[in-house]
């Protein structure tokens, strides 16, 4: 069955849905306004050229012999459409009333849909280009829409402005990253997850401990960060210790609960087997119960990676040395430097995704045997 997929590239590709063709109506509407007058497509040579390029790629999409070829060709058409508003803005045109241009962009975005669908069917590492293109397109649309409709930068700055702020404040952002992620988050996360794990092992051996701790866990996870953060700052001071303490409070119980569930997930017959070999508690733990618990452990680690980042940033609102991502956000908001705030948010989002992604990758590698990852 799986062999037959090798034949797919030579198979006929599905026909294109007609929706991208809405852009053919674009020449009927204004493409830009300049000094209060509407300009139509033939009056703007650059826009005309880009529009023609997109239409030509659509018309000639059957020429390439493979799905990948068609995807690349159509991608050029999409890129031309996304470039058009940026070119027009550079030429000093206003775009808020430019119905034709927006129709062109809508059609191109629908065309991108087909590009992504084609790429999803391609085998090999090219597949990974799909999600990347999707992300890039979102950022591009964000740029085009915020600038085209002149959204106030206080509300939402375009990504180019965020990137500029990022470059201009790179040194500060790096210091924040080091303080928040490399010091507070890392230490708090390791302490919190480690403590949760160890307490779970203990609670698993001493049942009354588990019965006493679990309700406490529910209580702790219901306490809001903004409640404990100022208390921790009072207890442990301004530096990383108070942030780590907040993270520990947030992460200990998710890890404890997941580890406990994982340790209990070994089947009776598997336990009986160990018993029949005369294996003791520790050996059974190492050779059976912990491997069984691995999927649960990773679940806890993944949940906690996000919680830890949130915890540290929020806790920094309540007092830090003058560095840290939470500190940066709170001070720059007060000064209306929203581009720096967004740059910090971007760093936080990127860090969180990378952390989560790395854990997911490790999980895939370590628990490849688990039903959710099995191949065949």
């Amino acid at each position: 069955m799986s062999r037959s997929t090798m034949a797919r590239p030579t198979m006929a590709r599905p026909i294109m849905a007609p929706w991208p063709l809405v852009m053919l109506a674009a020449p009927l509407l204004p493409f830009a306004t300049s000094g209060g007058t509407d300009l139509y497509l033939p009056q703007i040579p650059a826009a005309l050229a880009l529009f023609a390029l997109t239409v030509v790629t659509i018309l000639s999409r059957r020429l390439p012999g493979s799905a990948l070829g068609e995807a690349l060709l159509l991608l050029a058409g999409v890129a031309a459409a996304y470039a058009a508003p940026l070119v027009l803005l550079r030429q000093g045109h206003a775009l808020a009333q430019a119905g034709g241009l927006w129709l062109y962009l809508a059609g191109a975005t629908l065309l991108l849909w087909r590009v992504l669908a084609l790429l999803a069917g391609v085998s090999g590492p090219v597949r990974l280009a799909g999600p990347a293109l999707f992300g890039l397109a979102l950022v591009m649309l964000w740029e085009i829409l915020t600038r085209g409709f002149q959204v106030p930068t206080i509300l939402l700055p375009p990504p180019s402005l965020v990137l500029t702020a990022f470059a201009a404040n790179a040194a500060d952002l790096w210091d924040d990253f080091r303080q928040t992620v490399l010091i507070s988050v890392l230490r708090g996360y390791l302490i919190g997850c480690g403590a949760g794990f160890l307490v779970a092992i203990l609670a698993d051996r001493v049942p009354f401990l588990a019965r006493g701790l679990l309700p406490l866990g529910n209580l702790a996870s219901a306490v809001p960060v903004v409640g404990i953060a100022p208390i921790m700052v009072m207890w442990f001071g301004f530096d990383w210790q108070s942030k780590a303490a907040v993270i520990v409070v947030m992460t200990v119980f998710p890890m404890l609960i997941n580890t406990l569930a994982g340790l209990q997930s070994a089947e009776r017959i598997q336990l009986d087997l160990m018993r029949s070999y005369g294996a003791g508690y520790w050996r059974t733990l190492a050779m059976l119960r912990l491997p069984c618990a691995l999927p649960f452990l990773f679940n806890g680690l993944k949940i906690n990676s996000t919680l830890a980042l949130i915890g540290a940033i929020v806790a920094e609102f309540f007092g830090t040395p003058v560095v840290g991502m939470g500190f940066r956000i709170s001070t720059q908001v007060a000064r209306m430097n929203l581009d720096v705030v967004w740059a910090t948010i971007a760093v936080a989002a990127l860090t969180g995704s990378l952390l989560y992604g790395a854990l997911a990758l490790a999980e895939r590698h370590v628990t490849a045997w688990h039903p959710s990852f099995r191949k065949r």
Partner: protein
Amino acid sequence: MPAAQPAPLTLVPPAADAAPRTIVDVRNLTLTYQTTDQPVYALSDVSLSISKGDFISLIGPSGCGKTTLMRVVADLEQPTSGEVTVNGMTPEQARLKRAYGYVFQAPALYPWRTVERNVMLPLEIMGLPRAERQQRAREQLDLVGLSGFERKFPWQLSGGMQQRVSIARALAFNPDLLLMDEPFGALDEITRDHLNLQLTRLWLGTRKTCIFVTHSIAEAVFLSTRIVVMSPRPGRILDVIDCDRDLPRERTLDIRESPEFQRIAHRVREGLMEGHSYDD
């Protein structure tokens, strides 16, 4: 009623050391499971004595306590009353000395271990050196016809193959006593015949003591020196049938056509039917 002690088997020459002739001795064993609604009388006053080299089959309808009896012998279940000794020791001492290999009703393989490493598991626990572990695992996998599957993971094998891996695992550390709970229940007829033949050869060659649970009368008669017919509610022994008197020790598959074989099979069937009529 509990069977009388059979004559000791003569094929095994009396050993010079004072090894006990009786490997498993069960006396007046009763086991009641306390469940939430009502007690389950899984075993009631069961007595059975198994000598070295015996091949005992337990046969009977589901729920008559076959698994429970094996689990008591293996120290996986505590009797409510009665005496059990294994190699002259308590079941717990015997378990800690790794006196038996247990083949469970389900394969119970560890999905994170390859087939080979599953077979090596008991050897790892016993602390055998790596090279020997590997060699023994290969031998046992070869014996159950699974050479070439060493590096596969359990879920990549069929149910029957998985069960054969679990048999290889029980054989790997060469225990003198083998407890097998419906090991061939999930296998097709041909594989089953093949493994039956291999099992009787193995048993003849090694003189292991075997306790074997099955639902198949033919399988029980073919393999056993004695067949224990059981009946449920409460779980008890109805009949113990000696096969060794009428059938040769060395058996081939065509022995199943012989009148002696048929006669014993008939008696087993009678016993099973008697157990059923008790219920109604």
